[in-house]
């Protein structure tokens, strides 16, 4: 059998279903909405490195589908990346570049540079002309010092001392514009990032839940998952729900699971 007959893809997108889906669209079927991270993501440069921040809400239209998702993605040990936009795109694009960076490190035996990650990301996004809708804040510390960049879905990039992205970017930027100064200490930096994210959480409906922070300094990083939970749940009932009548079951089938048997290879029992 030829290799092509085996349906295991080698990579890249498949456009098999596009014609069918287009036909459905022409017949008046509404196109589906994807999971978005209507987001507040921020980053700033402080005296020893870079701090990234994000909220933790994922939405699908007006519905909150994940109250505590992770938006600060790992790129390399010294580089992290916040993602906003279509969740699948941000996840896929950062994962892909992260593995390219890992291979690059194996090849060169050096620490990855932030510009390398930046170039890989913008090349991918530009080649898809904005159809891969990922808006990113990329931050890291490499041999040339701390770096902070924003990347837009079409592939354009900015290099900034402080940056915000996502639907809550205006709310967060208002905090940065009024309070950011050069040479912030670590604690001041974390406080400012937290405040900017909180501004997004409270003033932007697409952002919410908790604050994630990632502090990257030379040779060290600290991922503060759920650094702050400004809106804890208040409606937990003290009494459990109880059901006076049991659920009516029509049929029950019990399949016992067999214990996993450890096979101990008995050296040369078969030989002779």
């Amino acid at each position, binding site marked *: 059998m030829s290799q092509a007959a085996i*349906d*295991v*893809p080698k990579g*890249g*997108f*498949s*456009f*098999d*279903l*596009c*014609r*069918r*889906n*287009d036909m*459905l669209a022409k017949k*008046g*079927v*509404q196109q*589906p909405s*994807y*999971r978005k991270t209507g987001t507040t993501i921020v980053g700033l440069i402080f005296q020893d490195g870079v701090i990234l921040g994000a909220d933790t809400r*994922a939405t*699908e239209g007006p*519905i909150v*589908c*994940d109250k505590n*998702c992770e938006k600060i993605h790992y790129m390399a040990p010294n580089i992290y990346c916040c993602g906003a936009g*279509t*969740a*699948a*795109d941000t*996840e*896929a694009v950062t994962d892909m570049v992260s593995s390219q960076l890992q291979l690059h490190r194996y090849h060169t035996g050096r620490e990855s540079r932030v510009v390398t990650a930046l170039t890989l990301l913008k090349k991918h996004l530009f080649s898809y002309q904005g*159809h*891969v809708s990922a808006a990113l804040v990329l931050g890291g510390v490499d041999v040339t010092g701390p770096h902070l960049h924003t990347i837009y879905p079409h592939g354009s990039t900015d290099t900034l001392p402080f940056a915000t992205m996502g639907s809550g970017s205006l709310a967060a930027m208002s905090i940065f514009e009024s309070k950011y100064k050069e040479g912030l200490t670590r604690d001041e930096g974390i406080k400012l990032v937290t405040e900017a994210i909180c501004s997004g959480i409270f003033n932007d409906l697409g952002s919410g839940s908790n604050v994630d922070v990632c502090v990257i300094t030379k040779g060290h990083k600290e991922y503060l998952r759920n650094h702050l939970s400004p809106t804890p749940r208040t409606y937990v*009932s003290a009494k*459990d*729900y109880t*059901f006076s009548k*049991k*659920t*009516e*079951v*029509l*049929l*029950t*089938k*019990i*399949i*016992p*699971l*067999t214990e*996993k048997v450890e096979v101990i290879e008995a050296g040369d029992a078969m030989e002779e």
Partner: protein
Amino acid sequence: MSIFEYNGSALIAMVGKNCFAIASDRRLGVQLQTVATDFKRINQVHDRLFIGLSGLATDAQTLYQRLMFRHKLYQLREERDMKPETFASLVSAILYEKRFGPYFCQPVIAGLSDEDRPFICTMDSIGAKELAKDFVVAGTASESLYGACEAMFKPDMEAEELFEIVSQALLSSVDRDCLSGWGGHVFVVTPTEVKERILKGRMD
């Protein structure tokens, strides 16, 4: 009309203490006309791993066949079953491959790891993973399911209690959705057994 509402579906997976439950409704419809009342949306991948596919039934079945193919290939090559986390990544990769012409399916994956740790996960139609610690829902009744589960869920439930909570959440939610219902299909998986139950529900 959204294509996700063509056949109608309700899916839910919930975590308990060293166990999990995955449940679906049993209706297959063509818009408002009911075609079948014993439809299976939840499939068993291996002993302790299940996948439910909500959305367009034709895509759900095609996707299921591709996933089983890839899982069998993995079994042959590796001589072991896939971990739930690995399987979730596989589903995500297969869905994202069709980023610009997706399958109209939203999967729910639930499994027990080798250390009997439950794993649940859902995705949108292009493979954005959502790993939850408590419960995940999908389908046309997802909005009501979110509400029901949010209120009823409690941590560390034993298998029987988990079954009761999942069943009640499912039945009460599908009663507020025209496109899903006609009873339920619940799997409760513990380290020792899989209990499959069919629920009686409203037939309207």
